[in-house]
């Protein structure tokens, strides 16, 4: 894997979609190591066994198994962590095969799979950038996926008061780099070169009912997303200016940029790989968790419960997993954060834990996303090999406020027809 080292890093950061490298197929060993990190055994930490509850009384003993954000939360009594059994989260075979056979190591001409499957190297100045591309082109929801219902709650972390509940429906569709669901690798015609579409609709509360949001992310990383909002009370599609990705989404603790760990242009950040650690992350089997009876689903599905201070954290089990520390520093000096640290799960490239620091360098937001194994979730998700988003928590540590999310994910291609991601579909709304 060789990158063109002559270009200035800043210039590359601004035009990273176009950087060209001398591409080579990743070795079998690289790919195996990337997708099967537990082949030789799961990571371990002394005394850390399934069933163990870590709280402020014993957290110091396991400090090495924590990222600093979660460690402080446990130490300060925000939450207790229950350890679950280690498990493998295999990725879709087609995605792995695409990685194996691709001319990877080059974003220009990238087709599918994990672009940079090699183990990151601290000596590689662009290792962070490669991880950022791996993250961007990760499996995520596979070629398509949906969430319904998806409950967001705004909570006062100090009092536990639920201030607002939003009920969403979300759909995701990759127009490009598809590996499993026909057509492969791209839905055509796609003259605008949309990489991914996101469609969301709000059902509750009353003032947001029937609001729809459509986001088109383009293959050209330097291009801003196109976004359209259908406001139920206006019955009209409104074009959005998408440059303000640091806006608090619908007043939640989530900036638009915070979705899925990082939801912006790769070129908007300087990326740095800061090492590999084994840390506790909320990866689990949904059906084995303590679930809440609060929301009723006709199929009997139950959602992950919340607990801890202000009920801001998902009540799920954690397991020790190999993670890459990826640090993102904004290119824009006026960005409200000084940096974001993503703990990328080595096997899945999901950011199970993310820490956001304010411009003074103080911890601002503590983001957790819980992942369920698809074989222990809805029956239809079984065998999809898509690690399922199952809960999230974004805590504003300074404002003592949090936003939580509880998911019901469906991996089902027919739920995400391309026309759902057309602007015109919004206009057919109620």
């Amino acid at each position: 894997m060789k990158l063109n080292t002559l270009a200035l890093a800043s210039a590359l950061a601004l035009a990273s979609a176009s950087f060209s490298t001398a591409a080579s197929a990743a070795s079998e060993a690289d790919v195996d190591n990337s997708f099967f990190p537990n082949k030789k055994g799961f990571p371990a930490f002394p005394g850390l066994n399934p069933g163990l509850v870590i709280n402020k009384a014993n957290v110091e003993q396991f400090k090495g198994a924590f990222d600093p954000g979660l460690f402080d939360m446990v130490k300060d009594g925000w939450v207790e962590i229950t350890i679950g059994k280690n498990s493998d989260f295999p990725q879709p075979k087609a995605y792995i095969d695409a990685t194996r056979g691709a001319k990877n190591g080059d974003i220009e001409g990238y087709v599918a799979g994990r672009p940079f499957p090699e183990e990151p190297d601290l000596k590689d100045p662009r290792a962070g950038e490669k991880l950022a591309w791996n993250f961007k082109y990760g499996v995520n929801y596979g070629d398509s996926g949906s969430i319904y219902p998806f409950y967001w709650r705004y909570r006062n972390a100090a009092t536990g008061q639920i201030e607002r509940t939003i009920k969403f429906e979300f759909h995701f569709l990759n127009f490009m780099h598809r590996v499993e669901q026909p057509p492969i690798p791209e839905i055509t015609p796609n003259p605008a070169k949309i990489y991914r579409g996101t469609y969301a609709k709000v059902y509750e509360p009353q003032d947001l009912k029937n609001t729809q949001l459509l986001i088109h992310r383009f293959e050209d990383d330097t291009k801003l997303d196109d976004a359209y909002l259908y406001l139920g009370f206006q019955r009209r599609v409104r074009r959005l200016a998408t440059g303000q990705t640091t806006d608090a989404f619908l007043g939640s603790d989530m900036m638009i940029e915070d979705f899925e760990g990082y939801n912006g242009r790769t070129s908007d950040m300087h990326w740095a790989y800061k090492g590999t650690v084994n840390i506790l992350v909320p990866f689990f089997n949904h059906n084995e968790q303590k679930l809440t009876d609060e929301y009723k689903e006709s199929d009997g599905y139950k959602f992950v419960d919340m607990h801890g201070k202000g009920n801001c954290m998902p009540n799920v089990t954690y397991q020790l997993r190999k993670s890459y520390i990826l640090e993102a520093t904004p290119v824009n000096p006026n960005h409200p954060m000084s940096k974001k640290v993503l703990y990328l799960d080595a096997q899945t490239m999901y950011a199970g834990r993310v820490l956001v620091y304010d411009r003074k360098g103080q911890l601002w937001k503590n983001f957790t996303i819980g992942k369920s194994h698809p074989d222990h979730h809805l029956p239809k998700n079984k065998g999809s090999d898509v690690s399922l988003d199952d809960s999230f928590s974004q805590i504003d540590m300074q404002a003592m406020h949090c936003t939580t999310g509880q998911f019901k994910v469906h991996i089902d291609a027919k739920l995400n027809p391309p026309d759902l991601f057309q602007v015109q579909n919004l206009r057919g709304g109620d």
Partner: protein
Amino acid sequence: MKIERMNRKRMVVATALALAGLGSLEARADNLPSLGGDVEPWKVDIYYENDTRYRGQDKTGHRVGLSKFRNTLQIEADKKVGDGWAVRSILRGTWDGVYRLNKDEYGEDAGSKSAADVRIPNTAGPVAQSVGLFGPAGSNPLTSHYSATVPYGGGVGFTIVDAIQSQAGLPNLGGPAGGPGINKFIDPNYGNLATPPVGYGSGAGLQLLGQRWNSTGSGVAFAVPVRPCDKDKRGCRDFGGYGDRKLSELEAPEFNDRADFIRELYAKKTFDLADGSNFFLKLGRQQVVWGRTDLFRVLDVINPVDYSRNNIYDELQDIRIPMWIAQGEWRMGGSGSMQERNLQVVWNFDKFRPNNLGQCGSPNVILDAGCFFRGMANLWDNGGTVANFAGFSAPGTPAPVDGVWFATNFGPNQIGIRKVHLPEWSLANSQLGVKFEGVTQGGLNFSVNALTYRSQLPSLRSINQVAVNPFTGAHGNSSPFSGPAQGIPTTNLIAFDVYFPRVNLIGGSMDFQSETLGAAFRLEGALTEGEEFANTARPRLYSENKVFRSVIGVDRPTFIPFINPNRTTLISAQLFYQHIFDHELKSMPGGKVGMPDWENNYIGTLLIKGFVMNDRVSPTLILARDFKAHAWAIAPSVEWSLTDDLKLTFGANVKNRDNQSRWEFDDCRSCNPYAPYTMYTSGAGTQGFAPGSFGLSGIEPLGRFRAGPIGAAWKENELYVTLKYKF
């Protein structure tokens, strides 16, 4: 009524047949709400809203008080009925208690208590007294015309006209001893001026036209009945859903013969076509929204609008009048150069309905038009007193344009509004639109639109010689008493029928975003032909003109730290432009003659909407400026979601204007339909026998078109609180 019911039945049957006929095509069957899907039970949301508003003083200095106590129950129900079909229904019932709680202002006790309460300007009175025209004050009943204002029914009538005629040596139009003869003006009840002439009806329940927002000064005005039509039926006409409403219908407007409590009831489905494209069908009572701009309706003209609910200040979704419409949309998907292509056909097969401009006597009468209409209809039916109408001059000489005028008592069928021609239901009267909408490879969203529809605003066309010539008692100038004017067709007469002409529209819209400016831009434009405007330079007092309208809008989410450092504040600015082609306006001795609407008009709006407390509190400031009317509005408000189900909104709506003189326009006093009796003179000469206006001007009746909806409501400043609860 029977025909109404048949039409409704026909529409329901047509919808049902269409639904049944299309059921056999391949459709989607999925299980998430956005995707049509399988059969699911009804999902029902019930909302209650109370909107309470309070108004300050109107132009008379009178404190209006409660202007709205509207209680709304809305039921929104959705159901997937299988085979990909989804049905949605919105039922809405409103009861506005303002008509009972403030009945002196809007209900059964509204308006004057007696004829003497209605003070109709009579600028000639003091001048007549100064020259002793009718003898010493109090010496005879005629001297009642000496006062600067007269009560309703106190204008000059046939006696004065007879006297003037005889003094001038003109044909005596009166009967023996001044009794009623050929001339059909109505004498006051000289025995008791507080009791109007019998034909005029009671002096109670009246207001002077425009008194809430302008001063008559030396212009014209007339008394307008303001009580609900079951309390006072004078001037009541169906102008298309308003104008003839009784108290209970004003209180609960949705429960009418058009079943407006069914706000929406439609079925929709997306059909997958063999070529990979799909076809979206939506049938039933619905709103179809075109365009990309807020507030201004450039392309968004498929559904008429109910301005009686809250003037222009409610969300359009709440005031569009849903119609029975079939819309089909072929969603073709992308092509080599376009990311999306869509072709939509909209067929509005409902019986025509115009905009609801508000019935006179209710709190929201946009442009005060409903009062003009009702007053004019009353003038036609019963006659009435018109302020400052008969020019004061030496007998037998034309009145000077810079003179003074007597309030004048007209008889029935002389001036006013005779009839409203609402288009009946027929295939030819249905409305059809086509839109192509696409997204280009570069992200430009655009649409090209075409629509043929009926004007949603009324057009007043003079009926001229159909009316009675009050001087001769004959129609037009058919009487020998018209002298040299006999046989000359009567034109420019302020007697009208109301029409809703067919309008054809072509237009387009687009939007795009600019990364450099961090903003999204919205543009919209339309050219119409067939619209009709008031035009005092034309024989029938209207003209048909092409109109171009456009709006450019900019939305910029902007961090304003003192509002919220973490959440953008939306700043949205719009500029509306309207150009009337072949605009007519000319200067005459008394003022401007032609079209009161501005040839080029500009209105700007600015919205600043912040979000605090995790979007649970949203302070909003809306500013609007009508640049030609020199009028502006400021509407600050705060929305506060106490819970997910309970929201309170506090706000104010304040308007003002620079001065009203720029709104004055030819009021057609000097339109000279019945020469020689109606001739005016000026230093430039005398009108002669050719009809046409000399331009005598006032605010009423055409100044409303220059004041616009903001200016005409400048004395309707309100404070309000709205509570909305979801059960």
